[in-house]
């Protein structure tokens, strides 16, 4: 630490003529939105705080084109354009460059998103669209980049407590320390609630996160992150075939990232991540007079190595290229019917060339070649152009092909149920002894392993504008997204040699024509007065059926989010977020008629000496709420209060 000198150093003209190192070179600066070849929405810390959200998925409601649901209170979820699954498997989520998905089942990103501590987020950047060419498979419908706060920006202590209806009881404790060369942060958090009324969906999430940021030299930046978490969440419908149960989940991870400025316009980045995750879920299910243990215990280990190099050759040409290697190993006898550890590896090489033939034009071509030990190699190309009509008004166009590779379960599922009930005789004819694979229902999932990657061809045009006189920012995107080879679970009959007359009815994963989505979305972000901000995000979409009968309803015709942030006299801050959709049906759920939700929040930041704090009250669904995901589930009004102290 720079100790204050005993005597002030005196100023002279030398201070004015001293040379300084180039610190914020072009490669260190964030690309302004009008130079990004795609539609990006940024949600900053301030907006997250004032949204009153407890979940990242709730924050994503503010992004044009994002739909929100909750399969139950413990599984809130956002998806871009279409509710094609309840796992978030079709969007790519990164936290500081670490991809966040669970390999155990369907490539779930929602569970990982639930573990993020909102207080540690600097901003969320959402790429609206598809971009496998830059982000690889699974950057299918939306890419979410969560940037957590640099440890240098969170020195000191922070305590936060939230209590309210529905058992809401959240706590965050954070401590940050360090100096100009190295900063550290340790965050502990706990989030508890009872979910939705009359549903067994209590959730209890606890996490510990560590982040260290190091500046060993002027040109190096090193980030080390570690985290561990544990979640218990209720699930099940309370029926014999789907009884109530508590699913346990735990994870640990490590991320090491090193960025070096090789020159003012040249940067190298290396990234290593390692993570482990395990699930514990066991329940006795019954049907057809039999009882069986249904388990989905699994443990997964994932290691990723990544390298990226970028260089601007001159004002006209810029090149970025890199590679990544990933290894996943999974052990789950209950889901894959093998004691062996099954594994896959995946490699990627990618490049992006950016060309500015003229001040007003920015053209970008990118491509990624990916290899996967199950599905072979794939190429994802992307072409995009930005045209600055004036510095404040930019037109965009792009075309790309993206992929979603099947998840482990889609490739290798093998779940079997064995009868545990003595004396079962089916139809009075077929005795089923204890330990026998239950006929008909005893093989719920068996993947034939023939499933291929889903593909998506997307065409888009967009506009990004800033009308200075009115202090209004506009972001609009029109799109055509053709999904093909959609992966779906379909039943088939598997012969049962032990009971030839009672074959198994089992799900397999198959490719089917996917929906064609087309529509447009926009955001008006208007600050008419210094104390007022209004954000209108809206999507209009039509979906043409590919194969599934419900596909056309998986996207609502219209989806709207209106946010009003108002600073009030006396230092109070008010916000209101209204979201509404036309009727739609999330995959596996019911057709919900016009879900509407209005959240309001009143906050009062204050200072007590050196301690700063904020007291806030949030009422979610103050309008009474609406049905969510299923007709028998309602997201009801709930209020909670938060006290936060920074010292």
């Amino acid at each position, binding site marked *: 630490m720079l*100790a*204050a000198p005993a005597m*002030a150093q005196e100023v002279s*003209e030398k201070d004015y003529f*001293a040379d300084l190192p180039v610190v914020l070179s072009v490669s260190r*600066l964030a690309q302004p939105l009008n*130079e990004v070849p795609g539609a990006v929405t940024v949600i900053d810390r301030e907006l997250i705080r004032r949204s009153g959200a407890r979940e990242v998925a709730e924050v994503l409601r503010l992004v044009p084109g994002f739909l929100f649901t909750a399969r139950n209170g413990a599984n809130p979820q956002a998806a871009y354009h279409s509710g094609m699954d309840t796992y978030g498997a079709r969007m790519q989520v990164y936290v500081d460059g670490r991809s966040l998905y669970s390999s155990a089942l369907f490539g779930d990103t929602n569970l990982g998103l639930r573990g993020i501590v909102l207080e540690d987020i600097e901003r969320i950047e959402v790429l609206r669209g598809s971009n496998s060419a830059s982000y690889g498979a699974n950057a299918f419908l939306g890419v979410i980049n969560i940037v957590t706060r640099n440890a240098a920006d969170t020195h000191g202590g922070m305590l936060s407590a939230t209590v309210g209806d529905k058992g809401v009881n959240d706590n965050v404790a954070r401590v940050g320390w360090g100096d100009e060369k190295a900063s550290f942060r340790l965050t502990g958090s706990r989030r508890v609630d009872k979910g939705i009324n009359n549903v067994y969906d209590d959730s209890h999430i606890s996490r510990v996160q560590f982040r260290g940021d190091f500046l060993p030299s002027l040109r190096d930046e090193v980030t080390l992150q570690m985290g561990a978490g544990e979640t218990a969440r209720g699930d099940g419908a309370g029926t014999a075939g789907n009884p109530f149960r508590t699913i346990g989940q735990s994870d640990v991870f490590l991320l090491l990232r090193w960025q070096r400025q090789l020159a003012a316009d040249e940067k190298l980045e290396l990234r290593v991540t390692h993570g482990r995750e395990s699930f514990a879920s066991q329940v006795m299910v019954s049907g057809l007079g039999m009882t069986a243990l249904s388990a989905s215990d699994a443990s997964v280990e994932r290691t990723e190595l990544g390298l990226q190099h970028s260089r601007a050759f001159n004002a006209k040409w810029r090149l970025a290229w890199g590679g990544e290697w990933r290894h996943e190993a999974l052990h789950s006898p209950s889901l894959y019917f093998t004691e062996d550890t099954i594994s896959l590896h995946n490699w990627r090489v990618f490049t992006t060339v950016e060309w500015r033939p003229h001040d007003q034009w920015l053209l970008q071509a990118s491509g990624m070649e990916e290899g996967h030990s199950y599905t072979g190699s794939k190429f994802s190309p992307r072409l995009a152009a930005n045209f600055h009509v004036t510095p404040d008004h930019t037109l965009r166009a792009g075309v790309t092909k993206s992929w979603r590779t099947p998840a482990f379960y889609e490739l290798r599922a093998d779940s079997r149920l064995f009868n545990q009930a003595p004396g079962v005789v089916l139809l009075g004819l077929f005795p089923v002894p204890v330990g026998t694979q239950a006929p008909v229902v005893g093989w719920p999932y068996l993947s034939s392993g023939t499933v291929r990657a889903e593909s998506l061809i997307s065409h888009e045009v967009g506009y990004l504008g800033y009308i200075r006189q009115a202090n209004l920012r506009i972001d609009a995107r029109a799109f055509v997204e053709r999904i093909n080879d959609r992966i779906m679970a379909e039943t088939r009959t598997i012969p049962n040699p032990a009971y030839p007359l009672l074959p198994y009815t089992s799900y397999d994963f198959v490719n089917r024509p996917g929906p064609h989505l087309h529509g447009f979305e926009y955001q008006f972000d208007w600050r008419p007065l210094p104390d007022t901000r209004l954000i209108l995000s809206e999507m209009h979409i039509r979906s043409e059926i590919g194969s599934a009968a419900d596909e056309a309803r998986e996207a609502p015709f219209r989806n709207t989010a209106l946010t009003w942030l108002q600073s009030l006299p006396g230092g109070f801050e008010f916000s209101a977020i209204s979201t509404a959709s036309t009727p739609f049906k999330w995959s596996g759920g019911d057709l919900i008629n016009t879900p509407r939700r209005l959240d309001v929040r009143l906050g009062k930041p204050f200072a007590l000496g050196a301690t700063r704090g904020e007291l806030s009250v949030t009422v979610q669904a103050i309008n009474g709420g609406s049905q969510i995901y299923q007709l028998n589930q309602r997201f009801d009004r709930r209020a909670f209060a938060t006290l936060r102290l920074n010292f």
Partner: protein
Amino acid sequence: MTYGSAWAAPVISVWVALSDTGGAHAETAAALRADVEQALPGRIDWRVAHWSQFGRAEPGPQWVVAVGTAAQRSMQGLFAGDAPPPLLAILVPRLAFERIADQRRLRGGSLSAVFLDQPPPRQLELIRLALPAVRNVGVLVGAESKGHTPALERAAKERGMQLLISMVGQNGLFPALQSLLTDAEVMLALPDPEVFNSQTAANILTAAYRRQVALVGFSPAYVKAGALLALYSTPAQVGARGGELLRLALSGKPLPPPQWPREFTVSINQDVARSLGLVLNELQLGEQLRLRDRP
């Protein structure tokens, strides 16, 4: 040096003492001479050298110009006795000048200066022009630069802005910087070797940029390093102003009081501006500021 004058008027002997013989000091001296020579060609017998080259034994000059703080200190020392030749210090920071100025000579009107720093109203006006929405301007000050804060506070208040002052104390620079960045929307760098130097600039610039706080620097080096803007007077601008004052004095008028440089330059780092979503024009901004600078 120049004796070929056709005028009968006597040649005036002027010493120009430099703190340093190269770079900015030489450039300032050259601009000063060019300005005077253009108006009074051949009238001046110039002696331009490093301050250590001048001694008391030589025939004394009629006027002395000190370029830089060290030169000012040595020239004041050299002519410490009675009836010293008038001294004009140029390219000196205001705080340095005020610290070493011989108060008796200052009152007597035989000592004046053209400062290197910028007047506070000009600094705040630039912020208002470039970033009209900004209300909270932060300054990070040390024991030296806190001398600037009263005038800056006044200038901010006049423009409906608030000056947030964070003092670098016993705990060092970093905590002061972090606490300032919590509330400041723009940060105005003030020359103070304890606070802003080539070691600390990197931390200050990166920490401010991470929080989207623009930095306004006081030299072109800051703009190159990553500050959004810089407001400064070049050596040529300071030298030319020095030349004007010297000419005035040579024409028999009293030496004007110490003053800010009249001409200035606004520089913008366009990469940083773009990245912060700003559209700024260097020439236009400079012109607007000049219009407001001269009522």
